[in-house]
């Protein structure tokens, strides 16, 4: 029983229109029309579920409620009870987080002479990187150039990106790919060694490098293996940072770690700190499900905000247009953008295309929301979720039988477990919380506004403007991870640390008390979401309430 009977009529309509749609080309909309549709339908522009920050560097700016609570949260550390004269680890560079950015930074910091400690919340390498299926952009084909990559990225980000960051990323991209090739990543190649590259939405050339649809997994495995092979890189698992330590010169000088299993606190003194904690999907902003891994709870944003780092585009969240809606076990997981790059179209309940399948992510997400709300042309599941079809079988008709199985093995595998055969059946999709476009303000080496602190990868902001193109997230982490690691190691050679303290935490708690909001705010960082059932409300959540799209608590 692949799809339930109530979906059959719509699937038949989709199949009936396939021959016609094979030749149907919907043009891309202009950049002016884009502005109009996102403003009307994109969750970033909705007023509900947001509020103004009451303190900190971004005071008076509007943020999603869930993020605002983390930024304004209470510290988990009581400064009076931590003895900073007893240091558990003393290193050159402390890296918080072990995804693609953290491990790239670790390798470059070590190569540049630093003793490195990686503190990570889950296992080494557990991160959003590992689930990244699509690929990595780099302008390395003869008809391409980093300047075109720059232009595409600026346009995709509505020209609100920080140009220096975009150029750093586009320029370093081929070097990052080469670095990974030398570390032993198996990029998809032709027999002569030329890269097999895809064009994703918003890109004027084919420049996305992949490793089947296991790109992030392949790269993460390699980075993790290399980290384990090197001297002078230590790592501690299940031990996240919960607060940064400062010195009396106003420099970041370490962090307090907590052992998640024993609750023991460990102060680390570090000459330089790289916070590479990734994104915030598990905050479920505006109630959306997410593609993010279990630990994506904005830890780095909360810690950096408390030492005085401002955020840029902190309210800009990427809702990936193709998150799974059915079956319930797969709600929120990502259907890679490669599906659309290969010709997979987005189809409504009547078998009609919703928009051009190569529109950038925020545009397509907006079209889907319009189709499912205002136009009532979505397909509603028995759990109350709504979505539109993504026509995957069309790919084999366009590119020949066997293409889906060869190019999308991971996807096919995941759905086959639930008796859905993506080679012959479409998949139901709706926007899902995928990525934080903004983040901690940084320069082209990922240095933040506070000395001694770097913020490469998803936790950093500015490079993607208010919308990120496919293939630029994994690129971002390698490029800025490498830059941060290199510069932090250099900085560690020169800096003189003063006396360590947690005065900023005292000051922060005082301000919360003065505003009389300390009791209302949660502790932050959140560290892990709590999906453990509060007995008796679970069935109600799942089956009795008429849920809004995306409000399922699973996944």
């Amino acid at each position, binding site marked *: 029983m692949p799809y339930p009977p109530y979906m059959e009529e719509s699937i038949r309509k989709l199949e009936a229109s396939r021959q016609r749609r094979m030749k149907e080309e919907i043009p891309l909309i202009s950049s002016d029309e884009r502005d109009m549709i996102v403003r009307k339908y994109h969750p970033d522009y909705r007023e509900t579920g947001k509020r103004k920050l009451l303190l900190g560097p971004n005071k008076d700016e509007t943020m999603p409620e869930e993020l605002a609570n983390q930024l304004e949260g209470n510290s988990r550390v009581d400064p009076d009870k931590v003895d900073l004269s007893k240091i558990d680890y003393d290193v050159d560079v402390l890296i918080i987080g072990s995804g693609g950015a953290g491990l790239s930074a670790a390798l470059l910091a070590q190569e540049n002479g630093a003793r490195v400690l990686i503190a990570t919340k889950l296992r080494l390498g557990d991160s959003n990187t590992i689930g990244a299926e699509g690929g990595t952009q780099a302008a390395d084909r003869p008809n391409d150039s980093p300047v075109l990559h720059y232009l595409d990225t600026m346009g995709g980000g509505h020209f609100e990106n920080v140009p220096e960051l975009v150029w750093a990323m586009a320029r370093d991209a081929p*070097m990052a790919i080469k670095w990974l090739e030398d570390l032993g990543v198996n*990029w998809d190649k032709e027999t002569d*060694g030329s890269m097999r590259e895809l064009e994703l939405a918003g890109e004027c050339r084919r420049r996305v490098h992949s490793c089947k649809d296991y790109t992030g997994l392949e790269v993460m495995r390699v980075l993790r293996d290399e980290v384990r092979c090197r001297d002078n890189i230590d790592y501690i698992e299940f031990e996240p940072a919960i607060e940064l330590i400062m010195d009396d010169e106003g420099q970041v000088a370490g962090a307090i770690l907590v052992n998640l299993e024993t609750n023991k606190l460990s102060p680390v003194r570090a000459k330089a700190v790289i916070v590479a904690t990734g994104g915030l999907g598990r905050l479920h902003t505006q109630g959306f499900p997410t593609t993010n891994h279990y630990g994506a709870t904005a830890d780095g944003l909360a810690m950096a905000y408390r030492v005085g780092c401002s955020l840029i585009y902190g309210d800009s969240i990427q809702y990936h247009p193709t998150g799974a809606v059915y079956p319930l076990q797969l709600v929120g997981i990502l259907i890679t953008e490669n599906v659309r790059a290969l010709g997979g179209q987005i189809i409504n309940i009547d078998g009609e295309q919703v928009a051009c399948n190569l529109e950038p992510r925020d545009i397509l997400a907006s079209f889907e929301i319009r189709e499912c709300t205002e136009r009532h042309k979505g397909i509603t599941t028995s759990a109350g979720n709504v979505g539109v079809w993504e026509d995957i079988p069309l790919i084999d008709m366009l590119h020949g039988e066997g293409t889906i199985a060869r190019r999308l093995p991971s996807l096919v595998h995941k759905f086959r477990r639930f008796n859905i055969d993506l080679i012959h059946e479409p998949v139901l999709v709706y926007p899902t919380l995928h990525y934080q476009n903004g983040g901690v303000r940084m320069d082209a080496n990922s240095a933040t506004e506070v000395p001694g602190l770097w913020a490469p990868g998803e936790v950093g902001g500015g490079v993607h403007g208010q919308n990120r193109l496919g293939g630029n997230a994994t690129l971002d982490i390698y490029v800025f991870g490498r830059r941060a690691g290199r510069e932090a190691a250099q900085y560690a050679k020169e800096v003189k640390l003063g006396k360590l303290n947690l005065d900023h935490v005292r000051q922060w708690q005082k301000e919360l008390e003065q505003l009389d909001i300390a009791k209302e705010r949660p502790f932050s960082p959140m560290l892990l979401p709590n999906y453990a059932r509060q007995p008796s409300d679970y069935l109600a959540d799942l089956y009795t309430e008429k849920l809004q799209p995306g409000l399922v608590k699973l996944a």
Partner: protein
Amino acid sequence: MAEAEVAEKVRMFDIYVMEKRYKVPEGLTIQTALEYCGYRLIRGCGCRGGSCGACATVYNFTHDPTLRYGLACQTAVEQDMCVVQIPCFPTAKPSYDLKELKPTGEQVLEIYPDLATCFGCNNCTQSCPQDIEVMDFMSAALRGDFSAVTAESFECVMCGMCAARCPQGLSPYNIAMLIRRLHGRYLLPKSKHLEEKVKEIEEGKYDAEYEKLRSTPMEELRRIYDERWIEPK
């Protein structure tokens, strides 16, 4: 809808978590069922999407003792299922410098000498939640066929189940890791256009063009963007 009606619609299963019985609704994965039971996961939970290998789980049924292996986030609960998670398993992981290695079978045997003690019991294949033919790639490793190892092991999430079940104490997933890296670095042909582009960039070939765009007024930049040539599929 009243809870009684819900109960009619949703079947409830008995499952045993480390031998403790719970009732959970049909349609959950092992992972979400654990959360339904009230567990807040620390270990044994990662990407929640079948990519990271953090949630390897062994299970069988009260009426059928045959062991099965799955990722908790990808395996649906069934009636009378008995589950135990194995979030971590001790294995040997030698250090090496890829730059100093040769892409040969002898090299792999030097780093993992115990590889030669594999006697083909096939426990590894049976224990793989990704349905990888682990024993096949171990034979390919012994033959020095690195392309076969890379292809066969490419979906490996390194959960460690194969090592947990190996009577010889081998760690197939680590051996495959080394071989895939040797394959990626030494056996896949190098990308010439990549090398050329890296050289051009390092020589500063594109810097002037960027500087020009950088100082282009927004209006004009938007026009250049909208009119840029898009490579046909």
